[in-house]
C-alpha cells in the first residue's frame, strides 16, 4: 500500500532518527486486524523537537512506541544513528535502546511505588553496570539536581510522598541518567496542572539544551506542542496530514484537518461565533475510508479524494501537506510568499 509520501524527509548529516513506511497492525478479533499506523515516515535531527499531534486514535502514541520497538512495528524501517532498530533483537536491541528513552503521561503510575527515588533513577545504571557504587550514586544525584530535585531532600522518598510535578521530574531524571540521544515524551504534561505543566515544559527545554537531546513530543494539546516543537507532524487515522514548522503551521494550516483542529482550540476572550461545524465522528480504524481518510469529515472533499490517496508534497518553505485541495495561504499571513516545489 502506498505510504503518505516522503517529500518531507531530510538528507542532512544531522538526522539522528529516520523512520520510513512504519506500519503497526493489531489483531482486532474475528480474524480482523486494525492498522493503527499506516505507512508513516518521519525524521528528526539532532537537538530537534518533533511534535506529533492528533486526536485519540490517530496513532501518534503507537508511532512513538513502534519507533522504540515497544512493540516492534509490523513493517517499516527505523534507523537510529546508523543502526536499523527493526533488525535488532534481544540484548543488542535493549543495549541500543538505552539511548532512546521515554517519559510517560501519568508520572505517578509509571514509578514503582515501593522504590525510593534514588533506586528508581539508578535502576538503568545498575542493569547496564555502567558505573557502580559511589560513582553511580554521584551520577544519580547529579541528574536529580539537574531536574530540579534536591537529592538530599527527595532521594530516599517514595513516589507517593511527591507531587505529580515532582514525580514527572523523577521520570525525566530516570530517562536522562543513561545519557540518551532521543527521548520520546508521550503526553508528558497532560496529567499536570497548568502551573506545573509550565515548570515541566521549561525543564524539558532546558534539559534538551543541556544534554543535546532530540525529543519526540507526542501530545494532543496544540498550544503545548507549538511551544516546544521545531517541527510538527499532524496525524489523522494512522496517516500524516501535514508536516510544518510550528509558526507556519499555526499561521496558515494547509490541510483542512489541521485547520479544523486549530479552529477547535478554545481561546481566551473568545467571543467570536462558532465556525461551521465539521460533521461526523472519527471513522473506525477497522474500516478506514478509501483514498484520503479525512474525506468523510472534510468540507472540501471531492470525487478524487475517495479514489486517490493524497501524497505528502511541499507547499511552502518547511510545509508539506497530503491533500488534493490544500487551503491557500491567506495574503495577510506572516510569511505571504510561497515557493512552488
Amino acid at each position: 500500500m502506498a505510504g503518505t509520501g516522503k517529500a518531507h524527509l531530510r538528507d542532512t548529516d544531522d538526522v539522528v532518527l529516520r523512520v520510513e513506511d512504519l506500519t503497526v497492525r493489531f489483531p482486532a478479533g474475528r480474524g480482523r486486524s486494525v492498522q493503527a499506523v499506516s505507512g508513516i515516515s518521519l525524521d528528526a535531527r539532532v537537538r530537534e523537537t518533533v511534535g506529533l499531534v492528533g486526536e485519540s486514535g490517530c496513532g501518534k502514541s503507537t508511532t512513538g512506541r513502534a519507533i522504540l520497538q515497544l512493540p516492534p512495528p509490523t513493517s517499516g524501517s527505523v534507523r537510529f544513528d546508523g543502526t536499523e532498530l527493526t533488525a535488532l533483537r534481544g540484548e543488542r536491541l535493549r543495549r541500543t535502546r538505552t539511548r532512546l528513552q521515554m517519559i510517560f503521561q501519568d508520572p505517578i503510575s509509571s514509578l514503582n511505588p515501593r522504590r525510593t527515588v534514588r533506586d528508581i533513577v539508578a535502576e538503568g545504571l545498575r542493569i547496564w553496570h555502567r558505573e557502580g557504587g559511589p560513582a553511580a550514586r554521584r551520577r544519580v544525584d547529579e541528574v536529580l539536581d539537574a531536574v530540579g530535585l534536591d537529592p538530599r531532600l527527595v532521594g530516599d522518598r517514595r513516589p507517593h510522598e511527591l507531587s505529580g510535578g515532582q514525580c514527572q521530574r523523577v521520570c525525566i531524571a530516570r530517562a536522562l541518567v543513561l545519557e540518551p540521544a532521543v527521548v520520546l515524551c508521550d503526553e508528558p504534561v497532560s496529567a499536570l496542572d497548568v502551573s506545573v505543566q509550565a515548570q515541566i515544559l521549561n525543564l524539558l527545554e532546558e534539559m534538551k539544551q543541556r544534554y543535546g537531546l532530540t525529543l519526540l513530543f507526542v501530545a494532543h494539546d496544540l498550544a503545548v506542542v507549538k511551544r516546544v516543537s521545531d517541527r510538527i507532524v499532524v496525524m489523522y487515522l494512522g496517516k500524516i496530514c501535514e508536516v510544518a514548522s510550528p509558526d507556519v503551521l499555526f499561521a496558515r494550516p494547509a490541510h483542512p484537518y489541521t485547520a479544523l483542529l486549530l479552529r477547535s482550540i478554545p481561546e481566551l476572550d473568545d467571543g467570536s461565533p462558532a465556525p461551521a461545524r465539521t460533521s461526523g465522528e472519527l471513522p473506525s480504524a477497522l474500516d478506514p475510508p478509501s483514498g484520503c481518510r479525512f474525506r468523510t469529515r472534510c468540507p472540501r472533499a471531492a470525487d478524487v479524494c475517495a479514489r486517490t490517496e493524497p501524497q505528502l508534497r511541499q507547499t511552502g518553505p518547511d510545509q508539506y501537506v497530503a491533500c488534493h485541495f490544500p487551503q491557500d495561504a491567506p495574503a495577510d499571513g506572516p510569511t505571504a510568499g510561497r515557493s512552488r516545489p
Partner: protein
Amino acid sequence: MRSDEPAPLLAVENLATSFSTPRGVLRAVDGVSFTLAPSEALGVVGESGSGKSVLVRTVMNILPRQAQVAAESRILFEGQEVRDRRGAAARHFWGAEVAMVFQDPMTSLNPVRTIGRQLTEPMRHHLGLSRRAADTRAAELLAEVGISEPVRRLSQYPHELSGGMRQRVMIGIALSCSPKLLIADEPTTALDVTVQKEILDLLARLRTELRMAMILISHDLAVVSGRTDRTMVMYAGRVAEIGPTAELFRHTRHPYTAALLRSTPRIDQPSHTPLEVIAGGAPDLVHPPPGCRFAPRCRQARPRCQQEDPALADEPGHRYACFYPVGTEAGDRALAENLADGRTGAGLDLTPVRTDRSTLDGAVN
C-alpha cells in the same frame, strides 16, 4: 447580595467542607460564598486541590462519608436551604432540579445497562412517565444532544459509543428532567479538542434554549472564558477572584489569576516562548499558611499578606481577595518594592536565577 441583581437561583454562603485525615483536618473548601442567577453561566477555575470539585459536590450532596460540612454553611436554592431537605423532597431536588455531568463519560455510565434504560430511569422515577412515553422522550433527547439514529442507540451499550457520544448521552440524562441548574465538572477534559468544541457548543445551545443555569468547572481558563457570564477563580479552598468573565480576563486583579494566565501556553505566541512558572507548590490544606494563602508564591506579597487574611474586596461586580491587586497603584508599588529588595514580603526570592530551580517546593509533603 446587591439589590440590582435578580433573586438568585442558588446562593452559597460561607460554605466550608473538610475531611478528617490522619494528619489532621483538611479544609478543602474554606468559606466560599457566591450566587448564581437563573439561566446564568458561572465558570469555576482552579488547579487540583483548589476545592472546585468539592464545592460542587457539596452542593450536589455527593460527598464521601468522611466529609464534614460546617454547620454555618448555607446552600439556598430558590431561597430554600437544600440541606434541610429529606426523603422524597431531597431525591426530587437532586434528581430533577439540579443535574450534574462528570468528567469521565465512560465510568459515569453503567456499562451493563442500555443507553435507553439509563436515559429513561430518571424520567420514569421523577416525572412518572410510562415506559413508552419515556422511550419516546429519550429518543428526542438523544436527537437534541446531536446523536444520529437515536432510536437505534437506545438499545446500545456505553462501550458501543465513542467518548464524545457518551458525553452527549450523559448530557441527555442530565437534561432529561429539565433541571434548573446543570453542574458540569470538567465535562470535556477527557475528550479530543474537536469533540470538546462540539460539546461546549451543545451545552451553550441547550442552556439558551432551556434557560437553564450552569456551573462549568474547568482547569482550562480558555474553556471558561468563552462560555460563561461570570468566572470564579479558586485557590486553596477559597475564592481568589470572581467577576464578569470578560472583565475578569481583561482586568485581572488577583496575582494568582494573572500568574495562571501567564503560565498557560497560548497558540497566539510564537513557538519556544518560555513559560512563566508560578514558584512553589499548592499549600498544605491541613496547615495552610497564615494570611493570604497565595502569599508564599506571590510576586507582589508584602509583609502584611502573611499576617492578615484578605477578604473579597467589594468592588461592584468584580471582586478579589488581595491587598495589592494587579494593575492597581498598590499592586504596582508592592511589586516594585519586592523587585528592588530581590525578595517578596513573604520571603520568595525574586532574583532571576534558573527559573525552574525555584519551583522545587520546599514543602515536600
